[in-house]
């Protein structure tokens, strides 16, 4: 009786997820091992060439760059996110809720618009250049946009709240009397942080890293709006293979490699979380 009830109630949502989520990924997997047909089609002939081509220096370089950009932006968000989370978590209840609101508020603006705002700020006719020209520090506009710097800035700007919020959550769960105990026993603040606070909030740190690293790695919007061709990431190349070049098998293979990296990161995360509990 019970078995029938749950299959009835779960059938519709899982049927939907199977058809529109699992099945498309499986088809993509098949495509990634198929040959490119004429007119952008696909020929179902087994081949590994799409994966081999992904390791061609031209494309492999993009994987390395994406990995590097994601790594750098994760590191930066962690280094500025943790202190902020610490300050917010230890604030009085009222100030804390205001500060958390201010961290979340940017999410209410469309991501494209938030990223575009940096074009207004950093562009050749943008605010920074206008100001520097006006003060006479520079005589011709600086190229602040369409390079690695602007892409990493955009990534950090776009994902920073994803790092701050999980760390606040883990700091809130920590028993704060441990800090007093540590102080009573003669540890200074750095030692207390290093020996008590940091280990006890690692779960939040790791969650933040995963939430920041994965969306950074597969970014399309940030490098597309703020980057030049020399700072494109793997997401831009995959999109290009699908939309412009119309080599779907090759685009599928690169998507699957992206999925592989993400799965490794997630399985590491799950193993870490299970070890803790």
């Amino acid at each position, binding site marked *: 009786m*019970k*078995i029938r*009830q*749950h299959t009835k109630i*779960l059938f519709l*949502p*899982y049927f*939907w997820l199977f058809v*529109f*989520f699992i099945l*498309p*990924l499986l*088809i*993509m997997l098949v495509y990634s091992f198929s040959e490119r047909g004429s007119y952008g089609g696909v020929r179902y002939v087994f081949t590994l060439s799409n994966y081999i081509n992904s390791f061609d220096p031209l494309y492999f370089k993009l994987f390395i760059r994406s990995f590097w950009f994601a790594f750098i932006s994760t590191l930066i968000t962690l280094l500025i996110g943790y*202190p*902020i989370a*610490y*300050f*917010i*978590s*230890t604030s009085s*209840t009222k100030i804390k809720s205001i*500060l*958390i609101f*201010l*961290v*979340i*508020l*940017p999410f*209410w*603006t*469309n991501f*494209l*618009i*938030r990223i*575009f*705002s*940096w*074009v*207004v700020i950093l562009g050749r*006719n943008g*605010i920074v250049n206008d100001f520097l020209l006006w003060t006479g520090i520079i005589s011709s506009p600086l190229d602040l946009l369409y390079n690695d710097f602007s892409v990493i800035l955009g990534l950090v700007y776009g994902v920073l*709240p994803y790092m701050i919020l999980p760390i606040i959550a883990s700091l809130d769960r920590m028993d*704060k*009397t441990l*800090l007093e105990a540590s102080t009573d026993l003669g540890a200074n*603040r750095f030692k207390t942080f290093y020996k008590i606070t940091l280990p006890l909030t690692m779960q939040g740190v790791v969650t933040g890293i*995963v939430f920041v690293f*994965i*969306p950074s*790695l*597969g970014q399309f919007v940030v490098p597309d709006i703020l980057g030049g061709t020399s700072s494109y990431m793997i997401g831009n190349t995959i*999109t290009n293979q*699908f939309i412009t070049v119309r080599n*779907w098998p090759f*685009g599928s293979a690169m*998507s699957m490699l*992206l*999925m592989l990296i*993400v799965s490794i990161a997630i399985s590491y995360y799950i193993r870490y979380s299970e070890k803790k509990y």
Partner: protein
Amino acid sequence: MATSRNTNDLKFGQGKTLFVITYLVLLFLHIPILILIIYSFNESKFASHWGGWSLKWYLKMIDDYSLWLSVRNTLKVAFVNTIASTILGTLAAIGLHKFNFKLKNLLTNILYLPIIIPEIVMGLSLLILFVLLNISLGLVSVTIAHITFSISFVVLVVLARLQSFDGTLEEAGADLGATPWQIFWKITYPNISSGIYAGALLAFTLSVDDFLISFFTTGPGSTTLPLKIYAMIKFGITPEINAVSTVLLISTTIILLLVSYFINKGSKDGNLFLDV
């Protein structure tokens, strides 16, 4: 909140350096948005070059027919998505919460996947499916894609609400002879309704906000607002986009503040957006 556990008598984490860093970063998060708002009143025809105050881009926006068409498309997609994903997500959450069965862990984990896999992979795999099944790319395919990624978020929110709800009430209802339908509407629903509304709101917001998955699953003539904004950014940046951004920002903020006010009034769980 007044327990000794949460007092911070030694002022941990409240030093001047952290204070300065925190407020500087909050400025970093908000200044770009403020600048967009200011530049929406820009007389110059370049989005980033200041040329004096003007309301002309707001007037241009009001006359922009294709913009309003994209707003209408966005609302259509979001409306259908909200209803469908809320129903499907609530069913899945109740099913996963109530029953113990062999595949429960696997099925729960499948729900997390759409949240964590790269959006680009999800969008492109759906594009492949739609082309393979000869489903024409347009508002229908976009809506299907939105429902697919919204379900998981609805489940998460509703499941969180279900976990704080006393399940023995349902058993009592069953003992007293209520049908499953009656149990749902008389007992379960009133207890988890705040979670369902929060899930629906999240599904609506995600849909209105989505760019990447819509980008891959849309077709000619079915531009949604984020797609229109993208086109404005890529081809011909004028301060009109700043005006659109400002109106969008203000309307989202007002709607979300109102909704969170009403939802928080209904439940004592605290802030909706922190739960999510």
